[in-house]
């Protein structure tokens, strides 16, 4: 009996070691340790042996069974690990295929993105955003902005007319007086919007967009304008930028200035490291970005004092600045857009690139 047990154990051990799959292993378990297998039968038959052999045989059989069980378990763990590894190898994907289903990518138009960027900068500087009508009265578009009755900008070659006294606004400035009529000082507003002029050529489109700024308080100086626009220039074009104010003329500001930002392409030098002339600022080192100035005292005289804006706008008591900048121009400079017409053509190849 003992020999047989040893023989069975040796035979089983060899076969378990050689088993290549979990399935084979399970078959071996049944063959050697299943209910009908020889070794368990021997264990069950121990009671029928003679008493003096029961201990010896029972112990040997039991040890053999336990040893085989342990071996089966160990081999099973090994085989499962091997089989998982094999399965994982088979699960290989071509990870370079595109994701699916594809998620379409949308985007804001670069003019909207730029308008928001500018709005956010001025929100941060304490300005609120207001909007105004695109069909505007001659009063707000010209008269209240100190344009003489014969100012050339009023001509039909320069302004779209809807009626005798009604135009498509030629700038966002008419909202200056409208805003002052609706709110008492201090007033800090920016006015983004679409404006219209009858020009259509390589550098003009009959519709374009501006952001007007207006700050009126007791003591707002031209130096404050410079500081405000310096903050804007650095936010849009980079921390290294500088601004300069050049005298200019606008009917509704006095003094009037044009504001240049140092060129971000050549760091304001006018030429590139290789010595070539900077294409962006054309060698000037400065980029003209907007017109501005202290609000002309005459403009305040067009603001009636009412319950809404009391105590009103007395030019001896309040002063402030205003500016108007072109959103197309800012976006054009920032993104290197070569042609205004791209903005309104809306070709998807343009839209997908920007911003």
């Amino acid at each position, binding site marked *: 009996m003992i020999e047989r047990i040893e023989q069975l154990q040796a035979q089983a051990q060899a076969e378990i070691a050689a088993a290549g799959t979990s399935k084979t292993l399970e078959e071996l378990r049944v063959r050697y340790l299943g209910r009908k297998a020889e070794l368990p039968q021997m264990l069950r038959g121990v009671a029928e042996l003679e008493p003096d052999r029961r201990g010896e045989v029972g112990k040997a059989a039991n040890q053999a069974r336990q040893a085989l069980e342990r071996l089966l378990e160990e081999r099973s763990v090994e085989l499962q690990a091997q089989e998982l590894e094999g399965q994982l190898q088979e699960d290989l994907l071509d990870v370079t295929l595109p994701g699916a289903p594809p998620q379409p990518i949308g985007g804001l138009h670069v003019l909207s993105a730029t308008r928001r960027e500018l709005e956010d900068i001025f929100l941060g500087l304490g300005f609120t955003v207001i909007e105004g009508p695109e069909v505007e009265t001659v009063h707000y578009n010209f008269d209240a902005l100190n344009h003489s009755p014969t100012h050339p900008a009023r001509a039909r070659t320069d302004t779209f007319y809807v009626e005798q006294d009604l135009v498509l606004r030629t700038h966002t400035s008419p909202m200056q007086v409208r805003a002052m009529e609706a709110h008492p000082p201090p007033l800090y507003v920016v006015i983004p919007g679409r404006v219209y002029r009858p020009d259509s050529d390589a550098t003009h489109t009959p519709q374009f967009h501006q952001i007007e700024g207006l700050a009126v308080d007791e003591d707002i100086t031209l130096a404050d304008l410079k500081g405000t626009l310096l903050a804007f220039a650095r936010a849009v074009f980079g921390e290294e930028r500088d601004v300069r104010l050049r005298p200019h003329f606008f009917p509704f500001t006095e003094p009037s200035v044009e504001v240049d930002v140092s060129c971000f392409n050549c760091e304001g030098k006018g030429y590139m490291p290789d010595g070539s002339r900077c294409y962006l600022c054309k060698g000037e080192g400065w980029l003209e970005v907007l017109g501005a100035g202290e609000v002309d005292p005459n403009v305040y005289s067009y603001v009636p004092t009412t319950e809404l804006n009391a105590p009103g706008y007395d030019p001896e008591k309040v002063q402030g600045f205003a500016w108007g900048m072109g959103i197309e121009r800012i976006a054009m400079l920032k993104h290197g857009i070569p042609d205004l017409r791209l903005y309104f053509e*809306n070709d998807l190849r343009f839209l997908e690139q920007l911003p």
Partner: protein
Amino acid sequence: MRVPLPWLLEYCDPGLDVHGVEERLTMTGTKVEAIHRQGVGSAANFVVGRVLEAEQHPDADRLKVCRVDLGADAGGEPAVIVCGAPNVAAGQTVAVARPGAVLPDGRELGEARLRGIVSEGMILSESELAIGEGADGILVLDGQGADAQLVPGTPLADVLEIATDVLELEITPNRPDCLGVYGVARELHAATGAPLAAAPWSEDPGTPGAVAGAQVSVECPDLCPRFTARVFEDVTIAESPAWLKARLTAAGQRPINNVVDITNYVMLLTGQPLHAFDLDRVAGARLNVRRAHDGEQVETLDGQTRTLDGEMVVIEDAEGPTSIAGLMGGARSEVASDTSRVLLEVATWSGPNIHRTSSALGLRSEASNRFEKGLQPEQAMHAQAVATHLMVELCGATAAPGTIDVGEQGRPARVIRLREQRVRSILGVAVPVPRQAEILGRLDFASEPAPDGLDVTVPPLRRDDVTREVDLIEEVARIDGLERLPATLPARRGAAGMLTHAQRVQRAAEDAMVGRGLHEVVGWSFADPELLDRLRIPADDEMRRVVTLENPLSQAQSIMRPTLVGSLLDIARHNVSRNGPDVAIFESGTVLRAAREGPGSEEHHALGALLSGSLTPRSWRGARDEADFFAAKALLSSMLDALHVDWSVQPETWPFLHPGRSATVLAGGHGSEPARLGYLGELHPLVAAAWDMERTAVFAVDLGKVAAAAPPVVAFSPFPSVPALRQDLAVTLPDTVAAAEVLDRVRAAAGEILDDVNVFDVYTGGQVGAGRRSLALALSFQTQDRTLTDEDVAPVRERIVAALAGLGGELRG
């Protein structure tokens, strides 16, 4: 305006190079837009020569072999130069380029062999120097310039402006005084402090008083404040001297003859235009200034016949109009080669009137450009004084005694108080009073001390521009102040920057579209009136009430868009033809209609979206969502639900939408009239076809109404800690019953225990029978405190089934 630098420096020379001058002018308000080079790049190797001999070339009929004295520096021996000009002759003083000279076209001159003879240089014409147009022959310097006895070998640049930097200036409309070289010189003087030469008109060789043999009358002094004229006799019409032609050419004017050139030169110097009449061709030797008759015709110098109206001004002689005032002279009294008596007109015209006439006739000139800015009456005599000098000097003319002078000669000067404190408070930087006085003095303003600043007298040429204290502050600031300005920020009392609710809603709505993969577009506000027909808008529809432009750029841009659909379709078509059939775009912009009553417009900010083709890119893994009604509705949901708008749709036809696939988008309406937010649908196939589009779905909403329907603040509502019980229910119904009605019935029947119900499947086909469809509903039951069981909701479910039976519904399987 083009200003040749040497001309400018003749009146004020700050000792700066051209870039230094550019910088000072630009930073004080006279922007230098560009610097041009007139003539040759470098003056080296261009010298004065004297032709000693000019003999026929032995082998070429048209060439002459010249021996030219180029002065002692050239080695003493005359140079041999082969010249092809017909007019070259011994004894002439000429302009010579020696080998090494670089011509304006960039060519470097070497010794050349011409038909066997080596030429040691080139005798030059004006055009070869790019200082004039004369190309018929060489430039002869005899008798030119101040010194007729030019010494051979003298650098040519000492005699003629052959290498000239020309400043192109932007003169702002308030500064007509800077439309002349002397005015710019005053600016340079103010900007640099360099001395300013006396005004060229400070000595007038002419005399006042009546003029014998010529008369002028002005019928419209409102449009012609001053008219002056002088008469010159014994005029010899000839070519102008080279120096004058060089200056005019550099300034962008074509030399014509000495008299015309003088009028142009004086205009460029003083800013005041002039006009020369051939007095013998002025019928009756009298001129009259009057308003034109409506429809009156004048033939101008350029040979064109112009038709005038009653607000335009003509100058007429005894035979009728000869000129359009301020714009262009007439052909009949033009100065010609046989002219011997000249009447020189210098007048002041109403700026706005000239601007109007010039715009109406489409006729612009250097003169009209100056007049329309508004010149001062004093300037007329400035020009007469300078012109009189030149007429005598260059045309051998005699100035007839007297000056015709009709109208006002000037006005009293204005005195303005300039407060020191006000200068500081406007600029944010102090400018000491003596410095203010100095700056103003350079700009020709006189000033006297006053208790709190200065009393400043405005010079005549600035009277229209400087009328108030703040105008003086600008004068001070632009010369000294702007460049020293610190960069400060306003105190911002009581100002907090924030977006309004409506502005935040607009951004959120746009972001929702972007997040769903749509591209924002920016279309044209201008539209073609035909758009309304293409959109099938009926004659009496609201949308026909459009804003129409009186002066559109074209008929196709003559109305303002009453809807975003047109521009969305235009853009979609563009992209379909170029980039393929899949388009998913939206626009966020203003749409306009004419006001219902009275003038003005009704405007609102709309957001519209257009979908066509497939919504997703092609994939290796399966089907694509097609752009149809429900795709557009899902997109609209993603926006309105994100904004917490309580919304619904109601079937309704829109003229441009597929009648079976169109709806109105509503908000609210529980117990009140719902707000109509906009529309949703597939385009009418005929509308789509008008833009060459396949099936296309659109929606548009009024963002102002959306903002009104969107809660500014969303309040928290507690949710139960226990899970909901979810059940499905499939029911077949007549296909005429709307899903919304089914859901309403289910909600009403279930009561509060029903947390949510939705349609998750729709089936039509054989199994449910004709005229019926099956809807699968996902029900979610919920109470606050207890986990529900199927038994709990069984009675509710029964009520639901009963309610659906009322609609003709039967439970499926």
